[in-house]
């Protein structure tokens, strides 16, 4: 069941960047692509639980700041060692300048 949560203002994220978001004890990462589309994944790398919000966002990929594990942040797909497990992704919508994610 959908549970839309207001996460941040659309302008809080620079193009091609990521910010952290916490809700109900869980960490999320919210991305803004160069084309101004917004995406959300779980906040920790699936390899060793490092927060992804300090990582590098480039070309649709988030790279973990600890071991350089790479994920497609639009699909959550792990792109090779040392990350083998995909990230969970969450639906995102932008309404009236606010980014909402469905954490349901």
């Amino acid at each position, binding site marked *: 069941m959908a549970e839309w949560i207001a996460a941040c203002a659309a302008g809080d994220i620079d193009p091609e960047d990521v910010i952290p978001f916490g809700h109900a004890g869980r960490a999320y990462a919210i991305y803004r692509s160069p084309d101004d589309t917004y995406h959300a994944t779980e906040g920790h790398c699936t390899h060793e*639980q490092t927060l992804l919000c300090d*990582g*590098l966002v480039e070309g649709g990929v988030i*790279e973990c700041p600890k071991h*350089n594990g790479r994920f497609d942040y639009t699909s959550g797909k792990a792109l090779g060692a040392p990350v083998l497990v995909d990230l969970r992704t969450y639906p995102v919508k932008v309404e009236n300048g606010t980014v909402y994610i469905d954490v349901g």
Partner: protein
Amino acid sequence: MGKERLQRYSLAGPENQAATAAGLAGADWFRSDVPRKRMKELMRRSDYPAIRDTVIWLGLIAASGGLAIAFWGTWWDLPIFLVYGTLYGSTSDSRWHETGHGTAFKTRWLDEGLYQLASFMIMRDPTIWRWSHARHHTDTLVLGRDPEIAAMRPARLARLIANFAGLVDVPIAFRLMFLHAAGRLSPDEADFVPEPERHKVYRTARIHLAIYAVTIALAIGLRSWLPVLLIGGPRLYGAWLLNVYALTQHAGLGENVLDHRLNTRTVKMCTVNRFLYWNMNYHVEHHMFPLVPYYRLPELHEEIKHDCAPVYPSIWAAYREIIPAILRQLRDEEHYVRRELLPGATPLHVPTPANDGRGLPLAAATAA
């Protein structure tokens, strides 16, 4: 002593569980505060620096290799092979390292291509060592967890010295290549290489062994050492510089600490050494922020140097500390080099009371 020491550093020994129980495995490490905007600038990649440096590097290897063939049988070959062998057998280490992190090039296939080539040259399986190095970054100098501790405490001195001629690394590399080609891993490797990745290890070992078999067959067919001196051999006679550089990274420093400012050195080096070593001398910076490509590390150094221990002004200065520390550790295994942070630096990161930096074996300490 020998067996006990090996067990302390083994990933398959009791220290692994002890480190995990003490909260030292996969722990939270200190990082200096660098504004996100600045970090984004520093993390940005470009193909140009690594393409330029790789063209020069491969060009030097090809030129010195060509000269070695041209002057084969003359005394000129001694200095020529010294250059060729050092470029092949030592500086492939830094290329392996940077491309293994995936930070050298912006274009992925360039990075992966150089990683495969450098892995072959340095005689490291590209899959095993990607995982090994990830663990080294997770648990740097944590006993029972870090598979890349170069100098144990006390050091295995004869092996350290012999390895300046590759006499430890190369036999181990071939033993492991045969093991992997047979479809098996060592117990330590099994601790950090996930099952789905292992088939790559077995396949690569068979390819590498096939290349060496062709090289040896050529040497026998031509009745000449030349093929072996050009392929594989440099990992022996050209390995000296690799070890000169590598020991500066962590040797003699504190174990089981969660702050790279305590267990890692940044050493100032001249332009030539920085080209050969691809700026790996900025090692504290690299461990703290592994996403920063080698050509941006000098800038990162400027950002965080106030927050670290003093930098070593030269390789010589580092060795003036390393050699006495290693020699003293032969008699006193609790000795280590304690790094003092600069005034005003963020205080030491000591999230667990289990260790004060001496790196005493946790399992033994618990038993006592």
